[in-house]
């Protein structure tokens, strides 16, 4: 029992602290998280699920191959392995990246494996699943076909791109 004008006993405070911690643990367990790679392509900011991006490569020269469609700028070799490179801007409504610039994300999901050229990587972040929202039906532009969700990140809405949808587009 608390006496009038006296602060709660330390035992009571400790109980409250522990209770708070248990609640916090429960919240942390329930709140799943997802790692995302936030990247810039043209004027837009987009994300891929982190589990699909195996490496972020810089300084790799893309070897041009004749007769490829515009979304395939060529190939790179990574420690002796040859990988294709997709220019993601082709599918996001922007112009292709300039030769020699940008980074390449090595994306792998199921049987699909390719480099994806982007302008810059802004962040690799852990976000709560609750930050994922269904894509707006009003979302316009070429990116709409690639988006699986939208990330509400501190007021900014960032399209989360689906590698499966990209794979379908490039293998058609």
């Amino acid at each position, binding site marked *: 029992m608390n006496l009038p004008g006296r602060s709660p006993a330390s035992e009571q405070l400790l109980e409250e602290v522990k209770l708070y911690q248990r609640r916090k643990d429960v919240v942390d367990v329930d709140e799943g998280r997802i790692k995302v790679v936030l990247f810039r392509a043209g004027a837009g900011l987009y994300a891929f699920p982190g589990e699909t991006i195996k490496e972020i490569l810089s300084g790799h020269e893309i070897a*041009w*191959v*004749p*007769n*490829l469609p515009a979304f*395939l700028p060529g190939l*790179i070799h990574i420690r002796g392995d*040859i990988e294709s490179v997709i220019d993601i801007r082709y599918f996001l409504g922007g112009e292709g990246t300039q030769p020699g610039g940008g980074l390449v994300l090595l994306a792998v999901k199921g049987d699909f*494996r390719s480099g994806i050229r982007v302008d810059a990587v802004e962040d690799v972040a852990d976000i709560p699943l609750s930050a994922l929202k269904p894509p707006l039906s009003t979302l316009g532009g070429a990116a709409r076909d690639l988006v699986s969700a939208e990330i509400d990140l501190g007021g900014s809405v960032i399209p989360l791109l689906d590698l499966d949808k990209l794979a379908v587009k490039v*293998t058609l």
Partner: protein
Amino acid sequence: MSGLGEAPGRPRTLNLLRFEVGGACFAVESSQIAALLPFPGPGGSSASWFHQALEYAETPTYRAPVLAVVPVEEGPPRQLVMDALDELLDVGLDEIQPFPPLIEPFALRKGLWGVLPRGRQTVLLVDLRRLLAPACPGGAASESASASRSLP
């Protein structure tokens, strides 16, 4: 010119001729070229040009063009204008990789069949017989003769 070499227990080796056209690096198996001749100039030959056969979007600059004589399955040998050969390579089959699945269908259409990574360089392996074969989809053989007349 020699072609395949084989040693017991070791990967088969290919004897390749490396050359560059328009900033891209290619290699062809040496047995596919019967002879290399001096290029007589644009008016002196009805040969196909390499960049036309591969359907480059832009005409590249050739440093020192040579005329390659390429035996084909049917008919007389064909002539192909290539740029000067830079290097002779003996390469094991285990050093060569297929094109990645996304690129392979496009590459094979033009006789490009493999990739040789060499340091920072990427060498594209080209089968000249397939490239020049009339049956090759988007075939170079029929169109290149007329196109070459307008080249410098």
